[in-house]
């Protein structure tokens, strides 16, 4: 297990190097001179030239890449062209925001998705099954931005139950510590604020969690149905176990392995930043960070941002692989 983990971690190195090469090339293939984009339509030619020089963009690509990699090896993710601040210090609040949102979105998705899937399998072809799978189908195909705007319109504007944007009450902002705002408010022992911050999470979590929820529900259902047909379930039943015990104790564990893969992949995707959700709910996450960087042609941020996203993605995969063993001890690495 340890050796396996180490091997996987070592594999990260070529993956990340490949990643830097790809992002670097693609970023430089995007048409458009960053100096021109930053200065806009009112820029003069000399201003553009000055800015290019000061950003080091007039150097040949291999030189730019070497500088980038050398800095990277020293733990320096580069400096944002737009804000002139070091990315390594700038990126954390964005990552924390995305993690926080992803955790709540996935909690929602997994809890509802797995249970809906189980009940659908249990009561196969019942009205619940049809209804749940219909909703799952709608959920998978629903445009996120539409769902997000509808949520805002109904729950923020009409009913006024939840705030429509942001991470906290900005009239009275709090001193961030970890940048996980819910956690921060707990550290401050300010529980009224915890409630406020949780309320800010509700609408974006639902918007972001809907698609994974639908996928998980469908996956759980089909996986459950398959397991339920297997011999050992028949044996358990023959021993006289009740339906609830059969499902939650015996069938679920085996049915969960493919579901876990889906959960892992979906978590990775969400952590990569959900640009639409983050934009509509003005949630300052990693997706917005990279997206804004693209419109500014902020090369270092695009490169490092994607690198960090890729890193997170690989780590989530690793964790999922390690979890398999916990669920099914028969698995050997």
């Amino acid at each position, binding site marked *: 297990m340890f050796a396996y983990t180490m091997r996987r971690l070592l594999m990260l190195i070529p*993956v990340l190097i*490949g*990643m830097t090469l*790809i*992002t670097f090339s693609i970023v430089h293939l*995007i*048409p*458009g*001179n960053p100096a021109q*984009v930053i*200065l*806009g*339509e*009112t*820029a*003069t*030619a*000399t*201003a553009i030239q*000055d800015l290019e020089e*000061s*950003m080091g963009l007039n150097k040949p690509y291999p030189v730019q890449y070497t500088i980038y990699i050398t800095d990277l090896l020293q733990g320096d993710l580069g400096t944002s062209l737009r*804000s*002139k*601040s070091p990315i390594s210090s700038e990126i954390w*609040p964005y990552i924390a925001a995305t993690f926080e949102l992803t955790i709540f979105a996935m909690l929602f998705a997994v809890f509802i998705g797995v249970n809906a899937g189980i009940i659908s399998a249990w009561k196969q072809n019942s009205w619940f099954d049809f209804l749940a799978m219909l909703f799952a189908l709608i959920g998978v195909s629903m445009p996120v*931005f539409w769902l*997000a*705007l509808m949520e*805002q319109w109904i729950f*923020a*504007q*009409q009913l*006024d139950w939840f*705030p*429509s*944007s*942001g*991470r906290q*009450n*900005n*009239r009275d*902002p709090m001193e*961030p510590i970890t940048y996980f705002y819910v956690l921060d408010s707990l550290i401050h022992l300010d529980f009224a604020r915890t409630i406020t911050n949780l309320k800010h999470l509700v609408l974006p979590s639902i918007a972001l969690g809907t698609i994974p929820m639908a996928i998980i529900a469908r996956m759980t259902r089909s996986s459950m149905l398959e397991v339920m047909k297997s011999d050992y379930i028949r044996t358990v039943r023959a021993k006289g176990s009740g339906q609830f015990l059969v499902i939650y104790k015996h069938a679920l564990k085996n049915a969960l392995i493919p579901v876990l893969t889906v959960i892992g992949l979906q978590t990775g995707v969400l952590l990569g930043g959900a*640009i639409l959700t983050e*934009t*509509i709910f*003005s949630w*300052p996450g990693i997706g*917005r*960070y*990279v*997206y804004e960087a*693209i*419109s500014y*042609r902020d090369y270092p941020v695009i490169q490092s941002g994607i690198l960090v*996203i*890729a890193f997170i993605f*690989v780590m989530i*995969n690793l964790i999922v692989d390690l979890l398999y063993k916990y669920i099914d001890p028969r698995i050997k690495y």
Partner: protein
Amino acid sequence: MKLKFSFLITLLLALILVLGACSGDGSATGGETDDEPTENGSETEDIDESDATEDDGEEQVLIFARGGDSESLDPGSTTDGESSRVTRQVLESLLEFDKESFEVKPALAHDWDVSEDGLTYTFYLEEGVTFHDGTDFNAEAVKVNFERWSDPEHEYAFTDDGYVYSMYGTMFGGFKGDEGHVIQEINVVSDHEIEFVLSRPLGFFLQNMAMTYFAITSPAALEEYGAAINENPVGTGPFKFVNWSKDDSLTLEKFEDYRVEGLPKLDRVVFEVIPDNAARLISLRSGEIDIMDGLNPDDAVGVESDDSLVLHTRAENNFGYVGFNVQKEPLDQLEVRQAINHAIDREAIAEALYAGYANPAKNPLPPSYMGYNDEVVEYEYDLDRAKELLAEAGYEDGLEIELWTMPVARPYMPDPETVAEIVQSNLADIGIEVKIVREEWAPYLEKTLQGEQQMFMLGWSGTNGDPDYFLSSLLHGSNVGSSNRTFYENDEVDELLDQAKVAIDQDERAEFYKQAQELIAEDSPMVTLVHSTPVLATTSSVVNYVPHPSTSESLAEVELQN
């Protein structure tokens, strides 16, 4: 493992492609309209009260929501409007613009003198003013700031950290050592008197001094923060900087020792980023924010009919146009350009696209500007005349022209795609077949600079309220290859613009500009489409808020009332 790796790469490529595809029309989002006016005024008040109780009752906190975040809080090294909107509250310039116009008023300098020859400007500075860090504001501080912008070698220029003061270069003709650089010397006469000696007269020198980009930073703070000054602004303004969570919120608080007694009224101002226009309006309606910038013109009607909201418009300070590359066939023929000008229905465009919040333009200068020539005869929408002109040019049988379409929305052009389609159908009426060309924003700007286009769409927004910034930038021959994308060169016009630039008497300058506009109109290097008046909304509890045409207004006098 192998499979996962390739999946990862595929996913990454897909991500990059999607991001790349999205990047062009970033600011064009928000087309979803929210046209349901609601009657939940009472609920809005509820949330205001509950928020207020959380803030120990009496604090006045205003939330200003906008579409994008600031780039930098060092005013000199940015040209970004979202940045100067914030720095306007924290730092002050020697002069400032009047509330609703570009008329120059005293700020850190209470008075000034100009020498006969227009080469020496003396400013008398306010006494007893302190920066937010407690150090004194004086003539030496002003000098340090100007030297920092003009001299890349200056210890506070932070050139190695990527600081470029492009607005300074544009407004003062370059940097130290450049031939065109206009500020020759800065002399500290006494603690509160400073003298600027120019190498040649500059007609809009005072206008420049009122720009938010040339606001004075505390030299002690430059020393303390170094290149991190862009995240730690220290000025003399009504509000001082507290903190900034990027792409989220930026908080300022009242500066107790502000030089004007009784101001500011608010205890705190928070600038919040809500990228989507429709979502921002929902936040305003539910009382989470107090002021929203960037309202869709289509939503203005809904805001007006809502008692809990107030609609504001900014005075026009921009103009959108369809430019001709006058050096390319067939647009090098005057008749063709005039024919197209007669064939485009400006009124219809202003009405259809800006929901009436725009006026048809006849000059490349907003009407409120000094020297605006109202006597210029506009090109009337007249298809017969257009066809006649085309026939004169030898194109009775029609012709084909490319029109380059902007990929991003701008206040002067909120929906470029539709404008392009209207132009296309207008010109089809006189037998011109328009082919629409699409490019991404950065290549669009670069290629139009190099003259690859025939017709193109673009616009211009003012910063210092001077006609020179519009007319010279867009149409002076020396700016071909820089900001003059029509490649229009007329020696007579150039001469007039040059004279206007160096004249000191403002009436004389106005006269030059008027003559220039007449010649420009005759030559028809562009179809001047519209001047738009951007709309924004506040809740009805916001009082004394006056939007400035430059988009950066002081919030010192704004109050919240219930």
